[in-house]
């Protein structure tokens, strides 16, 4: 009997620790598939960040390092500089990347570090129990913004990809989501391209993936997908922000 579908060899057999309905699982699968299809697993070192994806070092089927909160891009820089021919990626949430780790991420991008950042933006702190993130939407209720995010108090949700599009060291940058099969296919294309650009040593590559957090949003998984499309995409439009184009030797 022909195999129609199977778990990616880019993932280990360990059971995922993510909540039911969370889209981290889809993103993991896409990253794993891209690494397998590009034949990169034996060369890859992934960086797990702090947050829900802290255990991702147990899930990706390659060498992994677990980084302190926000420091994934610094850890990645350290490795990439001594192993320039290996493939290095970070897997970071919006708290890790856009709040505590924004400095490390900006400067890695600005140096044009030849690494790939998988940035999962679900507009909330998941692991710690649903606190406000720098990407939380105006009016969004969280455990630390019980009256909703207020512009005058908390500022606007930070638009990471818009900001990074201004940085010269960025070779590829796209914001995608995984709410439908079509979006999932696009997301995979973006992730694959980011890794390919890294293979070609073209600089910093990042894919921002709008993701759901049904448990901490307090919304059922299917409704969460709808909520993401109706509320997050208008604030964080899906867009190819930067693509340095065809590779020329």
């Amino acid at each position: 009997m022909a195999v129609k579908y199977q778990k990616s060899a880019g993932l280990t057999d360990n059971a995922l620790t993510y909540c039911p309905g969370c889209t981290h699982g889809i993103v993991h699968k896409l990253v794993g598939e891209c690494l397998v299809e590009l034949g990169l697993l034996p060369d890859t070192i992934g960086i797990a960040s702090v947050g829900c994806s802290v255990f991702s070092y147990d899930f990706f089927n390659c060498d992994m390092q677990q980084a302190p909160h926000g420091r994934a891009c610094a850890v990645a820089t350290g490795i990439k500089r001594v192993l320039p021919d290996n493939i290095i990626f970070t897997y970071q949430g919006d708290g890790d990347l856009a709040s505590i780790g924004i400095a490390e991420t900006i400067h890695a991008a600005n140096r044009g570090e030849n690494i790939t950042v998988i940035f999962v933006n679900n507009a909330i702190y998941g692991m710690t129990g649903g606190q406000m993130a720098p990407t939380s939407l105006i009016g969004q209720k969280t455990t630390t913004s019980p009256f909703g995010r207020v512009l005058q108090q908390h500022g606007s949700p930070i638009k990471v990809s818009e900001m990074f599009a201004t940085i010269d060291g960025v070779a590829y940058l796209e914001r995608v989501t995984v709410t439908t099969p079509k979006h999932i296919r696009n997301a995979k294309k973006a992730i694959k391209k980011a890794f390919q650009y890294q293979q070609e040593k073209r600089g910093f590559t990042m894919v921002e993936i709008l993701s759901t957090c049904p448990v901490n949003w307090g919304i059922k998984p299917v409704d969460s997908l709808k909520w993401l499309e109706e509320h997050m995409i208008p604030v964080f439009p899906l867009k190819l922000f930067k693509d340095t184009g065809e590779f020329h030797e």
Partner: protein
Amino acid sequence: MPKVLMKGNEAIGLAAVLGGCDAFYGYPITPQNEIPEYLSKYMIEHNKVFVQAESEVAAINMVYGAAGAGKRVMTSSSSPGIALKQEGISYITGAELPCLIVSVMRGGPGLGGIQPSQADYYQATRGGGNGDYHVIVFAPETIQETIDIIKESFDIADYYRNPVMVLVDGLLGQMMESVDLNKPIKKRFLPPKDWATNGMKNHSGRNVVSSLNIDPQKLENHNLKLQAKYQNVIKNETRFECINMEKAEYVIVAYGTMSRIVRSALEVLKEKGINVGLIRPISLWPFPKEAFKQIPSNIKGILCTEMSLGQMLDDVLIANNGKHPVGFFGRTGGMIPEVEEVVRAIERFQETVVK
């Protein structure tokens, strides 16, 4: 090989290279800037890695990454910068990675000053990172000794899979001395780095570098393993020097720049007919408690001297364990004591007794 005249900070950089340093990650801060300045040229010219990070926090995490990848890596900084590195140092010890950290102390607290100080003894030996961990700390007193220790420190770090900190102050960093770069170092058997995250093509199975142990029993077991390692460090790496102990009436304890001043004071005191010995800890952690066994039982007291207001004093009191009267003399904030001040401190020892 003839001796060469070198500035302390530059000698630190060159010694690290001679010790096999593959990569330097750092951030500017006075009074250690000559280390990254020197290496920014040398490392690039020799096809090695030099990165000026965006902060001390980023620099120590770059060290964490590259050390995890199995390379010999270092950072250097000074007091407030070392404060910023404490989180990373805790992770590095937790993940059992080797690296070299050079700390060139200046006056504190806060932004403090930029003159030489020893007020970061606690910071080095107690640390500010979380958890039950230790960093192996050496405090040389000459540029020659600094070079010799730094050349060996990558081996020591690799052997124990633990950070080594070389602790000097701004005076040693900024002064010049003639040095021999080619003194041989102790040969150690170093196990292969089969744990390194350098890609699965280089080893069988997946390698993971992490300090996370969510199961408390596993975390306790990991800590017990670390403690067993630290016991080996205490047994094998404790270093000190004892001078003029046999006929000593008093014993001074001093390290680094302070011990250089005390050496001169011993000569002055001898001319005055007062016999004083010196215990010079070279390793600050592990602290050389056994040096105190060499103290004659009939001495009048121990004087702890530091360029701080009394930090190593804690370890001196523990090592002494109430046996002899202990006095303290220290200057701080970047004030370097005069020889005469140490002489006077011995002369009025009874007034300075702590216990």
